[in-house]
């Protein structure tokens, strides 16, 4: 009986240390972080249009598109497709995505489409595409928006994120926000 009480007391004290003091300390420090640790947002004219790190759905033809998402970019229910590499239904779906992509971008050769544009991301919320994935959409965007193609291409190139290590990425939301401001 004595042991039970001391185990309960030990549990309570460790709970206070690890489940109250520790998270509150981190919460306190988070107040100094961007947007007080609530997640960084992107605003246009003072209105929040999205979270910088969270991908959102773009299917209108005058915007750059992101990657396919298994959860349709539901930011309250992330998930991947979990399709195995040999699954016939899955492979048919990828083939269909390639065909659709070619219909909308008739100027493209198949071998120019990078695999990230036709496969679903792990989280379903991938905010990025590869630079190649953005560059192949330039011609379509320029036509839709009646903009100079070189200008759009220059915009994409200015939005390619490079770091010392790691893959090059393009944040689709940031790119589209900048695109809206392009005249």
């Amino acid at each position, binding site marked *: 009986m004595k042991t039970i009480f001391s185990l309960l007391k030990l*549990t309570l004290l460790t709970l206070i240390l690890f489940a109250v003091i520790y998270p509150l300390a981190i919460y306190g*420090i988070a107040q100094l972080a961007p947007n007080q640790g609530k997640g960084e947002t992107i605003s246009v004219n003072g209105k929040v249009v999205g979270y910088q790190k969270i991908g959102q759905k773009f299917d209108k033809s005058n915007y750059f598109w992101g990657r396919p998402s298994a959860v349709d970019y539901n930011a309250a229910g992330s998930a*991947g497709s979990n399709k195995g590499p040999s699954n016939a239904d899955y492979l048919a779906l990828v083939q269909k995505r390639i065909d659709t992509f070619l219909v909308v971008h008739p100027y493209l050769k*198949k071998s120019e489409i990078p695999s990230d544009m036709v496969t679903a991301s792990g*989280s379903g919320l991938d905010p990025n595409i*590869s630079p190649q994935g953005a560059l192949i959409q330039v011609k379509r965007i320029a036509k839709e928006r009646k903009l100079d193609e070189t200008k759009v291409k220059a915009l994409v190139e200015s939005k390619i994120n490079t770091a010392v290590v790691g893959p090059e990425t393009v944040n689709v939301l940031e790119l589209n926000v900048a695109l809206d401001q392009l005249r």
Partner: protein
Amino acid sequence: MNTELLGVIGIFILTIILAILLGKYIAKVYLGDKTLLDPIFNPIEKFIFKISGINPAEEMNWKQHLKALLSINMVWFFLCFFVLLFQGSLPLNPDNNPSMTPDLAFNTAISFLVNCNLQHYSGESGVSYLSQILLMFLQFVSAGIGMAAAAMIFTAMKERTTEQLGNFYNYFIKSCTRVLLPLSAVVAIILVFSGTPMTFEGKDAITTLQGDHVEVSRGPAAAFIAIKHIGTNGGGFFGANSAHPLENPTYFTNQVELWAQMIIPFAMIFALGFFLNKRKLSNIIFGVMTVGFLFLVVPTVISEINGNPAIEKMGIAQTTGAMEGKEVRFGPAMSGFWSIATTVISTGSVNSMHDSSMPISGAMQLLSMMVNAYYGGCGVGILNYYIFIILAVFISGLMVGRTPEFLGKKIEAREVKIAAFIAILHPLLILSGTALASYFAAHDTAMGYWFNGNATGWLNNPGNHGFSEMLYEYTSSAANNGSGFEGLGDNNPFWNITTGIVLLLSRFIPIIGPLAIAGLLAGKKYIPESAGTLKTDTSIFGIMTFAVIAIIAALSFFPALALGPLAEYFTLK
């Protein structure tokens, strides 16, 4: 591409270097030597022990260690089970998530208790913030339990004859306060400033740039994600785990999280060397583990970079490798490396969806958990390896005709029996679980209460890959890993209860076994090293241990791997 691989190799080497330093520190903590953090933690620990009425200087024998370990786990299980069961009506639930069903609460409580974090729920909709914080508490203490068990074994390996193996509570609290807490705080702060949320506000509702309405889940994630990796737990705050852009926002945070999950398992091995003053022994152990790790990781990274042959045939560019289930900011090399690190070490957090990995990668991920002794989880990794050392000592002893001895203690029938039982338990649990589930799936049995519908309904993929999904789930449970081929429909009584039982057995029996062996050996007469002693800190003995591991894993698991990922590999060719 090249810099992606460079980032992987860089972080691996950096972790090894830092692990040597941390190992020295951990050894000092367990030996009770002076350390830098004494002024902060001495008073806190004194206070905890005083209020709880525990004397941290009281020496315990191995049975007392076990009793303390098991009873405190029981307390935590009930605490967690009831909170999950009633979370819907408890405070800190801004998103109004519902309470768990009893079978899900059973599975979740056990799974966090045993440092596995198999999650049959999705973080955004399945748990309240209160539950998340309680689960985070279990992430601390379950890692502390593993480390305390390892510390007892370290003490038992000393060159002397004794029943007195230190104090369990002392090892446990010190592991939590002096190792897990400071490291977690550092990682959490890095995450917070890299974009991971740490807020108690609920979901945010926004209108996107093109005009859709979206809800965005947030929460006190940074603190949780830090200990999830430092404690090799792996349970994600969000459903997509470390593939989620808030849980793992950049390539840099990915490196930090990778470092965080490898650092303690690496350091514990070096700590053994510093603790016993046998650096060579720990270097050999680390060498064997690293060779085994490289055997698993290299084929995985290559097959992910090469991409899916079936998609290659469609004629598109796979310059970025196999991208299904992966995030652009990590890329295939980093995702492939992580998938082996997380399965070798019992973390089980994922930054890509393993279900969509290439077949060879899937086979390697499975094999990592089947071996379950390269690096391993917080503390328990070295316990698993200890079993293989005992077996290797016994077998080599028989081969050269000498009495099997390890660190001056005779290994006799009783210890070998325990070790053999532990070594067989792992394949037994995995293969019988998989056999049961496959039987139902093969017959498409109507499952009644156990599953809503016929058994094939829980599969997300047909054929060999479907078999792999079931094999993976039991392997992950038995290795206390927690990753999954997440396509499997696992939130139902059948999977919740069967994996729950596997989790319990495969956590506590492999702790009880090594503790018992170490305790029994510690009580035996110490025989000083002589010309007739079989040396255990040589590369020959390292190779011997490697062979024992390879034979046990290959023989027992090869048929299952052949039916799952290997068969899929050949169909894709």
